[in-house]
């Protein structure tokens, strides 16, 4: 926490965060709320594993199990992994490209609050009859049949709201990266994490609209008498599957490409060596994104699309392994001959390679359409996607937390505790999911709340449950580490001593305006270049002057709150008299604040040169 923040009262800090448009504070907001949803999703996972610890268990049965399972998947993907990825994008990308903020600070805040209210809305379902119970994929045939309560409506409306936030975030990062780079920061000098953010944002831009459309259809069918998915009136449930997976497969790359980016930074930093094959890394990232749009139907091999469609999607899917392989070798070659430092982030990076490769291998197995008839909807698929998502994305998020924590909060995390977290998590992860491959091959179906004794499934399931508790323990250690870091060692600008990219050239945490003078970038890894020439600071690209800053605003919060209110209204509009008016009121709040945003001029303000000088002096002493 900066010295300025500490002097303020709690109320002022809270107001500051509610109205902030500063990408660094928005990053904190994403990290905290994503982190809380991660704990919630983790708790749900523990419940699932307790239920499956022994055959015929009755800890969580039937409908409740379906709700917990659905919310686990939905929460982890949309409310934990996505915002945590956004946390690092916000914290790091503007710094890495040498910018003072993102292109649209106001929209950045709006994106966060939309995500936040969407997530809160979704979780309100727990207290209002029941949570969604048709799986995180919410296939229409199941979702239309879920009539006992409004669970699925919380899913369709909540995800529409938070999805809108994600879309806004994606556009913001695209424009930021295209328009706001410091002088000399050409595209082929951008750090890999920035590249990953760029490509991911493009994926978001094209993948989220189909999801929105699918959600609108489902909402129409359930709440407004639509017939998109109702076969009795000519509807077709397969349309949902296509729309969902046209979004869903790119979504997995939306999650994993930033993870690749985080690891690329960590490998280079702690091997103290330039990233091997930088341009092929960029190429592979773009190629994965491109191919990622052509393979969605591999989730639908058993739907009955016919042998030709299956064959095409099967081959297309397998080709993704090629650019992914390129990346794996580049990381290995980055370490080769480097002088490696085994810090906590580096532990995750090294562990990521074999873990993720195993997920990739099962992916290629699943991509063989004929074989997929056997694997589909079994625990083998569960094992596959947890190997890629946990072994890839979650490892990266944990690594990124340890790596960038000092930059974001100005304090080092404890390395010993960090390594304990790592080992507990690593062992727990493999214990939980490795055995699930075999459970799946032995015929255990996914999404079923229990299994019978005497079918050879007992031991495997028990081991899997034990592993989950290891991961829970790891999370507890991480939380302890975070709490004690408040009094921990202060982080210098170049917190690890081996920083290569621009974020390590400025104070930790950075001042509001990031760079007192925009830096001149002279190559890939600009800070490393300067350090190799014996300099301690970046070469400035402009004289010191007044700095233009955007104004804070409470409107993003109100706009998102309006949609939150509207969602409640529409959920209950069929059976209550207040539903429709409340729905309309919510929309009026949102459109009203958009109107205010349009008519009230917002020119921002300036921080004067003298103040900048003073702040820089303070920062240097801290």
């Amino acid at each position, binding site marked *: 926490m900066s010295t300025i923040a500490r002097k303020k009262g709690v109320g002022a800090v809270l107001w500051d965060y509610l109205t902030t448009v500063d990408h660094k504070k928005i990053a904190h907001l994403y990290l905290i709320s994503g982190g809380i949803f991660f704990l919630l999703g983790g708790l749900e996972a523990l419940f699932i594993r307790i239920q499956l610890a022994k055959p015929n268990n009755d800890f969580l049965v039937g409908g409740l199990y379906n709700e917990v399972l659905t919310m686990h998947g939905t929460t982890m993907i949309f409310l934990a992994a996505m915002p945590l990825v956004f946390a690092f994008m916000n914290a790091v990308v503007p710094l890495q490209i040498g910018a003072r903020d993102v*292109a*649209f600070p106001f929209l950045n805040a709006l994106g966060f609050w939309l995500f936040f209210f969407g997530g809160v809305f979704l979780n309100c379902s727990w207290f209002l009859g029941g949570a969604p119970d048709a799986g995180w994929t919410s296939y229409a045939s199941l979702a239309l049949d879920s009539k006992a309560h409004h669970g699925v409506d919380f899913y369709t409306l909540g995800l529409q709201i938070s999805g809108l936030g994600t*879309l806004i975030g994606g*556009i*913001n990062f*695209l*424009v930021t990266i*295209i*328009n*706001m780079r410091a002088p000399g920061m050409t595209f082929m000098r951008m750090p890999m994490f920035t590249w990953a953010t760029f490509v991911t944002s493009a994926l978001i*831009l*094209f993948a*989220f*609209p*189909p999801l*929105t*459309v*699918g959600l*609108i*259809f489902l909402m*129409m*069918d359930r709440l*407004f*008498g*639509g*017939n*998109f998915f*109702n076969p009795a*009136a*000519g*509807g*077709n449930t397969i*349309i949902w599957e296509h*729309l969902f997976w*046209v979004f869903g497969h790119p979504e997995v790359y939306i999650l994993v490409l930033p993870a690749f980016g985080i690891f690329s930074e960590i490998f280079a930093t702690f091997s103290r060596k330039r990233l091997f094959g930088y341009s092929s890394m960029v190429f592979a990232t773009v190629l994965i994104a491109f191919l990622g749009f052509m393979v969605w139907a591999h989730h639908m091999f058993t739907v009955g699309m016919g042998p030709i469609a299956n064959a095409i999607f099967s081959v297309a899917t397998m080709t993704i392994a090629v650019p992914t392989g390129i990346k794996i070798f580049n990381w290995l070659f980055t370490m080769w001959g480097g002088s490696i430092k085994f810090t906590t982030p580096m532990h995750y990076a090294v562990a990521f390679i074999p873990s993720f490769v195993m997920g990739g291998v099962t992916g290629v197995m699943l991509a063989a359409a004929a074989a997929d008839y056997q694997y589909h909807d079994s625990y083998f698929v569960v094992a596959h996607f947890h190997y890629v998502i946990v072994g890839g994305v979650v490892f990266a998020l944990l690594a990124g937390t340890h790596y960038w924590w000092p930059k974001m909060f100005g304090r080092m995390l404890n390395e010993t505790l960090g390594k304990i977290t790592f080992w507990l998590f690593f062992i727990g992860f493999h214990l939980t999911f490795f055995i699930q491959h075999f459970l799946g091959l032995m015929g255990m179906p996914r999404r079923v709340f229990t299994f019978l004794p005497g079918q050879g499934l007992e031991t495997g399931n028990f081991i899997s449950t034990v592993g989950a508790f290891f991961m829970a323990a790891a999370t507890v250690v991480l939380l302890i580490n975070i709490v004690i870091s408040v009094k921990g060692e202060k982080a210098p600008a170049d917190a690890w001593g081996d920083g290569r990219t621009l974020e390590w050239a400025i104070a930790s945490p950075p001042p509001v305006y990031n760079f007192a003078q925009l830096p001149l970038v002279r190559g890939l890894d600009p800070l490393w270049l300067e350090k190799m020439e014996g300099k301690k600071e970046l070469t400035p690209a402009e004289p010191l002057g007044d700095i233009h800053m955007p104004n804070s605003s409470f409107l993003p919060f109100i706009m998102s709150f309006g949609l939150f209110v509207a969602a409640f209204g529409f959920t209950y509009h069929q059976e209550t008299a207040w539903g429709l008016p409340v729905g309309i009121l919510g929309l009026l709040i949102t459109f009203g604040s958009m*109107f205010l945003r*349009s*008519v009230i*001029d917002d*020119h921002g303000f300036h921080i004067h040169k003298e103040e900048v000088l003073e702040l820089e002096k303070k920062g240097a002493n801290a």
Partner: protein
Amino acid sequence: MHVEEKLTPETFPAAPERATLEGKNKFLGFWLFLGGETVLFASLFATYLALKDKTNGGPSGEELFQMPIVFMATMLLLTSSLTSVYAIYHMKNFDFQKMQLWFGITVLLGAGFLALEIYEFYEYVHEGHKFTSSAFGSAFYTLVGTHGAHVAFGLLWILTLMIRNAKRGLNLYNAPKFYVASLYWHFIDVVWVFIFTVVYLMGMVG
């Protein structure tokens, strides 16, 4: 160039919408947003094509669609796109009054389109083609209605900008706003061309 600078026709830049960093960001961001909108409409079109014959015993497109009214609506909207080009032409020449005039005509034409569309929907409902009556109904009203909602939003947006800036004229702060609003208007027009072709023309030949 600075946002708050007072400008004359001589000092007004050739591309006022991109003369400031804010303008540049807005310009690019809006183009990207339209990219996302394109995918949104593509999904709606794909669904419509899959469901257009699923009338559930109700009237089909062939029986419903009337050339004269749809053709009129099309003409109104296409013309409004042209008038918005004039408006932007005058904006670039720093002629605020003429810009307002042409945007005003754009809004009127757009309102005419919307009125025809509402009348058309009203007729269809009377003939038994409802949102709730069949998969065709749901897909039709969602596709065409989403477009209509875009038109309505565009109208309100352009009107708001015209009224808000009526007294102070053009500057580099509001020029990008007018410009992206006109981009949005063109986009709506392009989508309509596809709706006209895919829904109405293809629907009438059966």
